[in-house]
C-alpha cells in the first residue's frame, strides 16, 4: 500500500509533465487542459464527500460562486493572486453556512438539498438580471498576474500554471487530509456512522470539515475557469454541471487523488473528440463511456492504473 502511495506521487509528476508538454505543443489543448485541471480540483472535493458516502448533486453552486466572485471583483481587484483567494473565501464562507445545514442530512436528502440550493442560486443569477446580466453572463476584464499585465498566450500560460499549481497543492492537501484521523472518520460515516458517536467524534463536524474543504476547492476551480474562459454564465450552476462533476469523479475513480484529474482530462478530451466526430450526439458517446467504465472498470481510470501497478509489483 505504501508502495502505491509513493508510486502515486511519481505518477502525478509524470502526469504533470505530460500535461505541460501537451499544452506546450498544442495551443488549444492548453485551454482544454486548464479547464480540465480546474474541474479536477472541484472533483477532488466531490471525492472527499464520496469517501463519506455522500453524493452532492449541487457542487456546481461553488464553482459558479467562485467564477462569479472573480467576475464581480475583477473590475475592483484586477489581480489574479488576490482574486483566487477571494473566490476561495467566498466559496468557503457560503460552504460553511450551507454545510452547517446540510451536514445534518445523509444520502438522497444530502444530495437533493445541495441540488436545490444550486438551482436556487442558478435562478437568482437569472432573476437579478440587472446585476448579473442573466444568461448573457459577465465578461471578466483583463487582470494582472502577480502584478504583470499579460496578454494572449502568456496570460493563457499563467492561468494554466495556476490551474496546475492548484491541482498539485489540493492534491497533496487532500491526500494528507484523507490520511488524517478526520479523513479516516469520513470513511466511518459511510459504513457505520453510529460508531463515531460512540468514539466521541461528531460525524456532523467531520462531514462539515470535508464539505467546507470541498466548497473551497470548487470555488478555486470556478475562479480558474472564469479566468480561463473570461466569461461566466449561470449555466455554471445548473444541476447538469453538478452531475458532470460526479460523473468525472466516478469516471476517474474514487480510490485516489489522481482519479479526479485523470477523469477530468478524459472527460474533456472525449467530449472534444465526440463533438468533432458527431457534433450533435456527444452526450450519447460520453454516456456510453461512463456506462462501460461503471460496468467493466468499477474503480474508474485510477482503479485501472492502480491494478496494473499492483500486478507489476506482485510479479
Amino acid at each position, binding site marked *: 500500500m505504501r508502495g502505491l502511495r509513493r508510486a502515486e506521487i511519481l505518477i502525478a509528476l509524470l502526469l504533470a509533465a505530460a500535461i505541460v508538454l501537451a499544452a506546450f505543443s498544442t495551443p*488549444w*489543448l492548453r485551454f482544454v487542459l486548464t479547464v480540465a485541471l480546474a474541474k479536477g480540483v472541484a472533483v477532488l472535493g466531490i471525492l472527499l464527500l464520496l469517501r463519506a458516502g455522500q453524493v452532492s448533486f449541487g457542487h456546481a453552486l461553488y464553482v459558479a460562486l467562485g467564477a462569479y466572485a472573480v467576475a464581480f471583483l475583477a473590475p475592483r481587484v484586477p489581480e489574479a493572486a488576490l482574486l483566487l483567494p477571494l473566490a476561495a473565501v467566498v466559496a468557503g464562507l457560503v460552504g460553511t453556512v450551507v454545510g452547517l445545514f446540510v451536514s445534518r442530512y445523509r444520502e438522497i436528502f444530502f444530495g437533493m438539498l445541495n441540488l436545490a440550493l444550486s438551482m436556487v442560486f442558478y435562478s437568482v443569477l437569472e432573476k437579478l438580471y440587472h446585476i448579473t446580466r442573466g444568461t448573457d453572463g459577465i465578461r471578466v476584464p483583463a487582470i494582472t498576474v502577480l502584478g504583470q499585465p499579460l496578454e494572449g498566450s502568456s496570460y493563457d500560460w499563467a492561468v494554466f500554471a495556476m490551474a496546475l499549481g492548484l491541482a498539485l497543492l489540493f492534491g497533496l492537501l487532500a491526500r494528507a487530509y484523507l490520511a488524517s484521523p478526520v479523513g479516516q472518520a469520513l470513511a466511518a460515516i459511510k459504513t457505520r456512522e453510529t460508531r463515531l458517536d460512540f468514539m466521541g467524534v461528531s460525524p456532523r463536524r467531520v462531514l462539515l470539515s470535508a464539505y467546507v474543504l470541498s466548497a473551497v476547492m470548487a470555488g478555486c476551480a470556478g475562479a480558474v475557469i472564469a479566468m480561463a*474562459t*473570461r466569461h461566466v454564465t449561470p449555466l455554471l450552476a445548473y444541476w447538469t454541471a453538478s452531475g458532470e462533476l460526479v460523473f468525472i469523479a466516478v469516471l476517474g475513480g474514487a480510490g485516489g487523488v489522481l482519479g479526479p484529474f485523470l477523469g477530468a482530462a478524459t472527460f474533456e478530451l472525449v467530449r472534444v473528440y465526440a463533438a*468533432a*466526430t458527431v457534433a450533435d450526439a456527444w452526450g450519447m458517446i460520453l454516456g456510453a463511456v461512463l456506462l462501460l467504465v461503471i460496468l467493466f472498470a468499477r474503480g474508474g481510470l485510477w482503479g485501472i492504473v492502480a491494478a496494473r501497478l499492483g500486478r507489476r509489483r506482485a510479479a
Partner: protein
Amino acid sequence: MPVTSPLTRRGALAAGFGSVLLPAGLSAQAPAAKPSELKIGITTFLSGPASVFGVPGRNAAEMLAEEINREGGIGGVPIRLFFVDEGPGIDHLVGEFRRLVQNEKVDVMLASISSGSCLACTPLAEELRKVTLLWDCGTQRIFEEGSYKYAFRSQANSTPEMMAPLLYLLKHKPDFRSLAVVNQDYAWGRDSWELWKAAMDVLKPGVRVVAELFPRFGATDFSAEVTRLLALRPDVVLSTSWGGDLDTFIRQSAERRLFERSTFVLPLAESSLERVGRLLPPGHIVGSRGDHWHQHPRPADPAALQRFVANYRRRFNAYPIYPTYHMAQAFSALRAAYAKATAANGGNWPSDVQLAGAFPGLEFDSPTARLRIREDGQALEPQLIGTTAQDDRFPFPIMDRMVVFPPETIMPPVGQKSLDWIRTLTADAVSRVPDPVRPAG
C-alpha cells in the same frame, strides 16, 4: 463533393494530438496563399431547447455549402464546414473555438445563436485575430459597448427587432391602454422587454403594464399565466418567446380563448407558424427577426427567394425559418467580403487582416434584400412585421398588412447606445412608419 467528412476531421484531430509528441512551431500565422479549401467553423445549438433554431441553421449551412461548392466554391476555393455545439456551455464553446482556429486552422468563424455565446466569442475572435461573423445572436450590447476589428454581424440586433413590432402596433392599433408581457426568463426575454418598455414609455406614455410575467425558460405549462391574463384582460399581450415555449403558450391561449380578449404581439412567431397552424387566429401581430418570410411581398430578387425556399423545403420538408435566412446572410456576406478583399488585394487571396478590412461598408444580398454592414460592424437589416391572416393555400396563418421597416429608421446611428437613442424618439417615429406593402401578384 462532401461538405464535411467525419473521418478526415477525426484525422485532423488526431494530427493535432500527434503534434503533442512533435516539436512546437505550429502557431505561426498562415500565409495568404490561396488555400486548397476554405474552412468555416460554425457554432450553433445542436442540443437543448435552442436546437429548434440551431439545427435549421446547420441544415441551411450544409445546403448552402453544397450549392456554393457545386459552383466552384468561394473565389474558386471549395468550402468545408465544422460545427460546434453551444449547448454544453461557455467553457466547451471557448475550447472548441480555440481548437478550430488553432488546430483546424479555420479561415472564418460563424458564431452563435445565444447572446451569451457571442459575448464570449467576440473578444476571443479579436485575441486570435480571426474573422468572426455573428450570424444569429441578438444582443445590441456587442457593438454598442465595444469595438472590434475582426468581429462583424451580418444581421440586425434586438433594438430594431423590438422597435419594429412596437411601431407597427402603435400605428395599427393606436388606442390600446393596457399591456401584459409574458417573456422567457433569460437574457433575451428581459432585454427585449426593457427595450420595448423604454420605447413605449417615450412614444405612448401612460400605458398600464398590468402584468410582467417571466416564466421559466423551457416551461411546459402556461395555464397559470393564461388564467392571469384572462382575468386581467389587457388590451395587448406581448411575448418575445420562441420554440416549444411559444408553441405551448399559443396553444393554451387559443384553447382558452385568450386570443379573443387581447391582441397578441409575437415578434418571433414566424418560426412557430408552421407548427401551431390554425391555432393562431387571424388579427395578431407577428414578426421574424428580420424581413424573413417565404411569402415576402416585395423581395429584391423574387427568383432567388423562391429558389431558397423551394430547395430548403425539398431537402428538409419544412418552410425555412429565420435562422436559416440568417445563415444564408452570413454566407452571402462572406462571399461578398472575399470578392471585395481579393479585388482590393490585386486579385490575390486576402490575409485575415485584409478579409476583416473588407467588412465595414460591405454590401451583400440576403434572400430578400440588399444589406450593408456599417463601420461599427453592425449590419443594417430591414424588419418585416405583419398581421396574421388565413389563406387557403397554406395550412397555417400567413402574414397580411405587411410593413417592411427600413433599418435606419428603427435603430440608433453608429456610436449611440440603444436606450439613449430611444429616449430621443418623438411621435414622429410613428408617423414615419411605412404603409403596408401589397403582395405583388
